[in-house]
């Protein structure tokens, strides 16, 4: 009964669905809010939904990888090939940190921590772009810090939406895990 089930077709389709919806919403909304980091809202939400639903290592990386490839192919967002990094770096960081987080920690806290970790990794891509553009190192670091602060706000918002959604999915018998 406790044997880990293999990744089912249903799980794979769910990851693909989240990745596609993430890119589609990012592309469709094209929010011109003038606020740096607002893309972290959707990213943290969809990655954490994958984490909560599948509960296995690699689910967020798979979602981020697919989203990055789709976004690159469709030309969504700024950055050309760097868009792949934008999507996959946060996913890798979140998946790795998720391994370290104790399951006894409340779901809300886990989601917020992972969202902020994802945001920090996302800001690395911003820093890398700035460094490639020839920006001085101290300015790159200041910009990175500013991105973490702004993106962290949106990432936290997205992360806080995840637990109620997961509880609702569980109530509808769409999650087959005993504990979230």
């Amino acid at each position: 009964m406790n044997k880990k089930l293999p990744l089912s077709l249903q799980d794979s389709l769910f990851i693909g669905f989240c990745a596609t919806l993430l890119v589609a919403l990012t592309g469709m909304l094209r929010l011109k809010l003038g606020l740096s980091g607002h893309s972290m809202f959707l990213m943290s939400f969809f990655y954490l939904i994958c984490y909560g639903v599948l509960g296995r290592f690699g689910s967020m990386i798979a979602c981020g990888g697919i989203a990055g490839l789709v976004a690159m192919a469709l030309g969504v967002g700024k950055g050309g090939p760097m868009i792949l990094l934008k999507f996959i770096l946060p996913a890798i960081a979140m998946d790795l940190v998720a391994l370290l987080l104790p399951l006894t920690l409340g779901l809300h806290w886990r989601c917020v921590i992972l969202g902020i970790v994802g945001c920090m990794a996302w800001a690395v891509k911003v820093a890398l772009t700035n460094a490639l553009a020839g920006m001085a190192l101290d300015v790159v670091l200041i910009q990175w810090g500013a991105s973490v602060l702004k993106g962290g706000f949106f990432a936290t918002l997205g992360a806080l939406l995840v637990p109620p959604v997961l509880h609702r999915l569980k109530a509808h018998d769409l999650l087959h895990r005993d504990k979230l």
Partner: protein
Amino acid sequence: MKLLELDGVSFNYGSQLAPVLQELKLSIGAGQCHCVSGPTGSGKSSLLNLLAGVLSRPHEGDIWRHPELVTGLVMQDPQTQLLRQTVGAEVAFALENLGIPAENMLPKVQLALRRVGLFLRLDTPVSTLSLGQKYRLMIAAQLVCEPHLLLLDEPWAQLDDHGVSELLAVLRNLIAEGMALVLVEHNAAAFAEIIQHYWQLEAGRLSEGIYTVNDAPVQDVPVRAWGGAHHLGKVLVSAEAFDFCFDGCQPLFSCPQGFQLHAGEIVTLVGDNGAGKTSLLKSLAGMLHLKLRLPLKVLGRKPKLGVYGAELGLLLQRPSRQLFETNVLAEMQFSLNRFELPTARAEQMLLDLELSALAEQSPHKLSYGQQHLIALASLACLQPKVLLLDDPLAGMDKEYYRKVWFLLKRLSAQGSAILMTSHRLVEHSAVSRQLSLRQGLLAEEAIGMEERYVG
């Protein structure tokens, strides 16, 4: 020939939850007809899903299937299984998914429809079929895959007597052709002529026999009114003579005499599937907007959605459509919060109905009958002045019947006017009057009023 065998099969919906099925042993052979009965919420539908192989959760024990076994499953609620707009497309749906070439589909679809006695054009819209026809269409959509085992979930509750007799004829032929059948049914007697093996499922255990509850007269719990006002006899719903027709269609039925609903009475509206019972209830609740306005008055006003607040309740035929919270208690407290009524009523209601064990469970995971009762209890908490119930007794065993009637009698004592639909005569002493909707005519029908009021 043995088709399927369960040996020591146990199943639950979570390791921390009580097992639904325990140590089940069952063997099904070709041409056999098995009937499983049991209390509401005992896991009968879960057993069918397990037999059909559609449960993705792990189970314990061994399930042996014949290597070439194909199973067909017809679920409890026809509306959830019909996917397409036309009869032909619905039956061909499985074939399309199997990648059968289009030219090979037509004879298979026609044969499947013939086997269930549906001689209709393939482009007939599904929405125009009666529930009995829809049920046979669902069977045809399974037969097109040529299953060896057909699983049916509570057909009697959904069909009127005509629909049941149509279904019986189809099932008799299928058994004669060597198909195995498993029926889950509260009313096994309705299918007695085809059933060979009777099983009862109680507390997760499957044993031979028919499930029966204590048929001795149940000592009703004393009805305690919350309000206790003396308002019996006041007219709460009235309708003058009218013809009911959807926009641009022929009249579905006419009501030459009109009708009234008084405070404190329970009135049944009896008619076959597709007669227009649900449409009338929706019109009374203001959910149906027709160009030709009906001369209806509910609580002194023309029906309009949202104007009645907690004074009017409507229980839909599909309870799952009005359940949305994550647990039963929250579900029952939702409307109480909305109308600023005491939320303690919800807990008291669960206690009165002996359903406190369900309080923390998700309403979406309950059985059809349990969902019906929870949806009804949620409405009853509001103590509405007018309560409209669309087939509230579907999918319930006798124990749940008793709970429903306890609720209705209590509401009636509080002065609620209750109108409930059914496709069969409702035989209960609490019923005050009966409206009959047959052959396009809505009229009051005598049900031995003296007997009703004696005692």
